[in-house]
């Protein structure tokens, strides 16, 4: 019997939702399951309601889904909010100290400090470790993998804490095991090569480090911060300079200064922070300074929904900044794709000497997917510097492809003169309007080479299907699964996912979508921003738009429901 379970762990902020879900998800991957996680949280430090969903299966997963099979509730609100999603044969596991009303007819398991760790002062450790253990017990997974993870996690807190975790997890597992469940994970075995559980932003961080990143600068803002954290925690080991800027304006200008000095540089932000960065974006383009900027989307306008997900900033990153200037825009769909695209972004920025934007969102950034190591190959670092020493050096020499040989200050006697004003080939400001024409054309010429290197289409489903679902960025997984389910149900359907959005890979997209009898675009915004871009660049447009702008990620169910009546 196929395994496909949703485990929802909910509580107030600060109660331990992550303390339960992170080791539990990892333990399930180590056991041999395929896992995808999703975080849903509010903009607050304590209280409120937050939850994580762990979907577990015995086959590859690219998407979450709706429904709950095991509900772990640390407070009453979690029960109230999610009991309606619980499957008829589902089980509620709850913290008896905080949940007083259990819905009638629901199978349940009460956990308390005193049944798990009697006579100790273990506090929230008891129920947190006990709940993780209970889930494993229900699913008939040995607890040893979990206790090892807990021991590793809490080693720094002393042997007593490690022992409490082990005891509570073990006791929880025994309690869970006693409840019969139709589904078991006992038959699943770990693959010979262990699998990885990694989030989108963690994968981007690895792509940056493997791609030779040497400088990162930013200002904290959800959901971008998780990427900034992931790089910063590894920075000392790999000699990366990390600086927290006083604001986003400083962040992008510092990154530009670092890149001018010769470091591969990254900055990033979300929504309003990027609005502050746009003048710097133009500066990078005008001075032809390589730069990678991550824009992690959340619902706007203005402060919007700070901790939720959205795909409403495509137009913002395509058109921000005064004047015409070349840029690239990439939008990965999975962590592994994000890893490769980050390495590619760093290379494109260096080779074409322009800003490269990577669009992510809260769903992409925070969700963990199960991957394998070969999906994260070694990446090439193409610095594309001109190492020979010549004077005088012209930073903006006019060339057929628009790319001027790039040198670094301090590499030799050639002076590197960069200017935000319109400038002569040697970098000095000019008001000679014939030079302006040459320089504007030179910068734009870079797009001609750049577009040749973009494509980034991912296909799934039935090749000649009359129904095509097109999407971009983080909606790859939900659309992929929706298409799979359509085909399984006898409706031929196909997915086309775009991860490289600017310069628009016009030919490849026109080829992929031109023959679609029924073209449906799936986008996490109100106006259908990719649909507009598609029409502008190819003349094609969707027959139907599936939109979502309530701050939640797409699910296969959401897409299939919207498709009813047209497919």
């Amino acid at each position, binding site marked *: 019997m196929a395994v496909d379970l949703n485990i929802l762990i909910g509580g107030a902020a600060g109660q331990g939702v992550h303390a339960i879900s992170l080791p539990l998800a990892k333990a399930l991957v180590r056991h041999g399951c395929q896992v995808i996680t999703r975080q849903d949280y509010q903009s607050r430090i304590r209280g409120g309601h937050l939850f994580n969903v762990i979907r577990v299966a015995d086959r590859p997963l690219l998407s979450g889904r709706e429904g709950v099979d095991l509900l772990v509730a640390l407070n009453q609100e979690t029960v109230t909010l999610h009991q309606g999603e619980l499957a008829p044969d589902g089980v509620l596991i709850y913290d008896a100290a905080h949940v007083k009303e259990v819905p009638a007819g629901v199978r349940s398991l009460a956990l308390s400090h005193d049944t798990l760790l009697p006579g100790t002062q273990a506090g929230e450790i008891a129920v947190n470790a006990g709940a993780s253990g209970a889930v494993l017990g229900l699913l008939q997974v040995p607890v040893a993998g979990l206790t090892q993870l807990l021991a590793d996690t809490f080693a720094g807190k002393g042997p007593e804490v490690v022992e409490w975790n082990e005891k509570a997890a073990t006791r929880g597992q025994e309690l869970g095991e006693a409840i019969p469940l139709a589904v078991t994970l006992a038959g699943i075995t770990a693959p010979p090569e262990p699998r990885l559980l990694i989030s989108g932003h963690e994968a981007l961080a690895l792509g940056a*480090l493997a791609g*030779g990143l040497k400088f990162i600068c930013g200002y904290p803002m959800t959901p971008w911060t998780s990427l900034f954290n992931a790089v910063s925690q590894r920075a000392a080991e790999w000699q990366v300079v*990390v600086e927290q800027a006083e604001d986003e304006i400083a962040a992008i200008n510092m990154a*530009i200064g670092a890149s001018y*000095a010769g470091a591969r540089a990254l900055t990033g932000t979300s929504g309003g922070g990027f609005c502050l960065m746009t003048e*710097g974006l133009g*500066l990078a383009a005008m001075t032809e300074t390589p730069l990678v900027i991550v824009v992690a989307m959340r619902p706007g306008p203005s402060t919007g929904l700070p901790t939720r997900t959205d795909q409403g900033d495509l137009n913002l990153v395509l058109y921000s900044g005064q004047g015409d200037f070349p840029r690239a825009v990439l939008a990965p769909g999975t962590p592994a794709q994000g890893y490769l695209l980050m390495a590619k972004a760093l290379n494109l920025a260096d080779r074409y000497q322009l800003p490269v934007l990577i669009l992510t969102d809260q769903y992409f950034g925070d969700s963990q997917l199960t991957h394998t190591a070969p999906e994260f190959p070694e990446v090439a670092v193409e610095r594309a510097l001109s190492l020979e020493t010549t004077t005088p050096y012209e930073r903006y020499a006019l060339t057929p492809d628009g790319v001027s040989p790039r040198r670094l200050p*301090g*590499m030799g006697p050639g002076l590197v003169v960069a200017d935000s004003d319109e400038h002569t080939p040697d*970098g000095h400001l000019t008001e000679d309007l014939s030079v302006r024409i040459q320089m504007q054309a030179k910068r734009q010429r870079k797009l001609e080479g750049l577009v040749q290197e973009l494509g980034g289409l991912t296909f799934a489903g039935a090749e000649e299907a009359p129904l095509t679902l097109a999407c971009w960025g983080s909606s790859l997984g939900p659309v992929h699964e929706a298409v799979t389910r359509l085909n399984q149900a006898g409706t031929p359907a196909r997915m086309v996912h775009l991860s490289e959005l600017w310069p628009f890979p016009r030919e490849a997209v026109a080829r992929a979508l031109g023959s679609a009898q029924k073209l449906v675009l799936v986008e996490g915004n109100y106006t259908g921003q990719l649909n507009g871009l598609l029409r502008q660049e190819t003349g094609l447009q969707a027959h139907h738009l599936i939109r979502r702008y309530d701050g939640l990620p797409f699910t296969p169910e959401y897409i299939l429901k919207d498709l009813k009546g047209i497919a």
Partner: protein
Amino acid sequence: MLPLDLYDSIESAWCPGCGNFPMLKAFKEALAELEIRPEEIVVVSGIGQSSKFPHYLKCHTFNGIHGRTLPVATGFRLVNRDLKVVAVAGDGDCYGEGGNHLLAAFRRNPDITLVTHNNQVYGLTKGQASPTSDQGFKSLIQPQGVPYPPLHTLALAVAQDCSWVARGFAGEGEHLKNLYKEALTHKGFSFLEVLQPCVTFNKINTYKWYRQRVYRVAETPDYDPENELWAYQKAKEWGERIPLGVIYRKVRPALEEAYPRLEIKSLARPESTPPVSRLLADFY
């Protein structure tokens, strides 16, 4: 001593008589005397008449955008420890548009020399009041005069323990040259504000106006620039008497000492990047 013509660059577009000319001359002399070659210094600037400074001096140049001189210079310094890094900005650029970056630079203490060309007016945009315009200063936008007092940036610097704080005057070239030399050799953030008359748009704060008021702070008996409270008094002094010279000094570690040291050779030709297998180890 290097020859001064080593630093000759393109022709300037400043107004005849502009206070920027004696500043450029004194700066070139300071470089020549310190034997800092054009390829050994980067000058970062923003937007304004003062920000054209690096174009008129042979050096590595990054002429960025209004107000953002210090972040660019700081990013550069964190990557390159070898070149002298000088940030040049006007009073509008550094104190108005870029004020937050100035506060952050005082805290960070990067090994950068900041030179502000303070003419108490917006020159490039033709005569509006700047953050340092005196109360009552009139312009097309402020026909009744600026209703509030100027920003005391030097006092702000002292209050924030900026590691070297000084004021020069474009009308005293030799003294200014020596301040440039001291600023360029100071390890840490050196903040040199220069009174730079704008001959076109500021008819109040002229060469004559400054000459009647400036004095050398070093001539104050027993003056000690490491005495914070005394320095604060001198930094706030403005109006009838305006002190020139090194007002405050405090030994602090430079920002970049807390960061990994990057070498230009390995930046240009990375020999090794983190092995992916090591990076992935956290995720099993």
